[in-house]
């Protein structure tokens, strides 16, 4: 391995065989390079007589963008692509958090470079924080093959493995159709949306696109009053109610009955969890003993009513 100052135009940037980083955000790096230059040399290796980048894609990319050349480079004399790539993995892995799409590229490239699946699953998935399972390996391959729009969403929304796992269960066409619904939602709600959509789709033997193309969802899309987040949120609730009609109906009935009681404003009344046990949760805050007595007295009156007692009956 040697060190040299390498002119940018000598590097073959089209050869991305060792590339891991997607370089979507590099403002901070650009600012640093403008201020002080490239601190950490990039790594290159000659292929076909031309240097190709092993690591340092973001640094080299910034240098190209701002016209800074030459840049410090370590020149490897390694002939084996797999060994070069393993070096790139370790350099990236120790330096920063890898995104899920980057992890998927690592796994695909390791396989492309000839490392066998058991070795990837056993040695690299734990390194990447992914369960060392064959199914997880297949899922990462599916992410690596996803359409650019899907990869961008996974990257921008910082989707985790569990969410991408759910997403890639859908066909590539279905995945594209999910983008507008998923982008506004946070991670947990994305997972809930995907999980419920899958279940409803399987249960009703309908394609996801068919469900999301039904009038109730189309009305949401067409709404001018709702923001993208509100639309996605409303769609998530629609799906949840479709997935869980009984629980949803029981909750709505409970809430309607609770409202009809005219409880004091300070009182919160929650149904039993999943309606599996008897315990209602009744709570209230009181700032003074007088406020406490007033609310307790009001509750005492309400508790004598038949409608209140009915709240304790579980759906049968």
């Amino acid at each position, binding site marked *: 391995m040697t060190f040299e100052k390498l002119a940018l135009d000598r590097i073959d940037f089209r050869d991305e065989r060792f590339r891991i980083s997607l370089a979507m955000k590099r403002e901070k790096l650009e600012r640093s390079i403008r201020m002080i230059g490239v601190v950490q040399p990039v790594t290159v290796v000659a292929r076909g007589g031309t240097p190709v980048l092993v690591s340092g894609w973001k640094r080299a990319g910034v240098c190209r963008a701002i016209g800074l050349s030459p840049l410090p480079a370590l020149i490897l004399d390694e002939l084996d692509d797999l060994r070069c790539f393993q070096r790139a993995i370790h350099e990236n892995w120790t330096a920063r958090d890898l995104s899920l799409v980057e992890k998927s590229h690592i796994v695909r490239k390791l396989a492309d470079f000839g490392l066998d*699946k*058991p070795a990837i*699953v*056993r040695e690299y998935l734990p390194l990447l924080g992914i369960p060392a*399972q*064959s*199914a997880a*390996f*297949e899922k990462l391959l599916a992410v690596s093959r996803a359409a650019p729009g899907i990869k961008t969403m996974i990257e921008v929304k910082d989707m985790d493995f569990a969410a991408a*796992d759910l997403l890639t*269960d859908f066909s590539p066409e279905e995945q594209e159709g999910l983008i507008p619904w998923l982008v506004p939602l946070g991670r947990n709600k994305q997972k809930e949306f995907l999980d419920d959509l*899958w*279940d*409803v789709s*399987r*249960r009703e033997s309908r394609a996801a696109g068919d469900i999301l193309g039904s009038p109730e969802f189309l009305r949401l899309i067409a709404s001018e009053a709702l923001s993208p987040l509100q639309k996605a949120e409303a769609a998530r609730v629609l799906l949840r109610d479709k*997935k*869980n*009609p*009984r*629980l949803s109906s*029981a909750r709505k009935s409970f809430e309607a009955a609770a409202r009809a009681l005219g409880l004091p404003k300070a009182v919160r009344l929650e149904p039993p*969890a*999943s*309606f*599996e*046990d*008897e315990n209602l949760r009744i709570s209230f805050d009181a700032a003074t003993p007088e406020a406490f007595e007033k609310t307790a007295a009001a509750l005492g009156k309400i508790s004598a009513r038949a409608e209140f007692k009915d709240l304790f009956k*579980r*759906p*049968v």
Partner: protein
Amino acid sequence: MTGMPWLPEKVFVEKESQGYPLTGRILDRLAGIPVSVVHSAEEAFSDIRYSRNPVREAKKRLWLARQRGSFIKPCPCTPEHVRCGYDIINVNTGCPLDCTYCILQDYLANPLVTVFVNVEDLRLEMDSYLSRKEGRVVRMGTGELGDSLALDHLTGYSLELAGMIGGRKNVYLELKTKTAGIRNIRKLDPSGNIIVSWSLNSIRAADEEEHGAPSVEDRIRAASLVSAEGFPVGFHFDPILHYPGWEEDYRAIVSRLFQAVSPRRIAWISLGSLRFPPSLKKTIRSRFPQSKASTAEFIKGRDGKCRYFSSVRIELYRKFLEWIRSSGGGAVAVYLCMESDFVWKETLEKNKGERKPREISFPLSLQRKGRACVWSR
């Protein structure tokens, strides 16, 4: 597996288990099938661990090893639900059948079809265990972590176990299966305290979700044969699946069951609706993407498991009870598996005439705080 007895593609023998008589008998019965002697289950599984479907691959392998812990354990049941008082005998773990909803997919660290070969250790443990239980009713069985009869043509464990409990009238040994592997059973004396039981489902549920299992009709036919020879038989409608058309499908099976088997021979029928730990859902989805079993509406039960909404469970059980009673099973003991007090009460206590405990000895072991948990008319 369907109607044919299961045969492994490879046999792995734990090095220390080579000298056991049962190892020898099994290997004799599997002459011609490749055998490797290894040190651990991990070693026997290592080359398939990262295959596309390791659980399925593991079902093609037989692992012969020693039971290092206790063979006999109380049924763990499930927290916050009515307990069954049953004892489990673990002579084998893992199962060659591949039911979509099977908890063993997630539960067992070793997914190989495993037979424990240290029968003498079991015999000693059984003697000691049963002598401590003298005078008390004991219900025990092998069908918890594996099918009781799916490997019986290789192991002969049904005969061994029958010999171990023979003559003890306070002990009921249940052999629970989805197979039709009754050859060894028919060699036994139908003494009354060996109960062969079948896990049944609707034809549709069995076709879609119970991969590799014999048809429901084959199971009922096997039950009919065994009961005709004088054995008491049991049936477990578990897991009952709730899907459009369930009522018609399950009614037909209950009706078919009572056509084929005399109610007088039925020791008990248990009912249990689909439940599973949330983690299993991911496994089902990954291994069986076509399965609809885990896509129904589920709530989180008090034990943390996914269960049908209580009103659905009550409806399922009430219907079953109605069909059982109206099909000639008026006196048959029926119990619920892993259910809550509330569902028990709504299903059974509130049904007219379902309060009287059956007056045979085994329900005594199901008593909980003085309330019998098995009802019959």
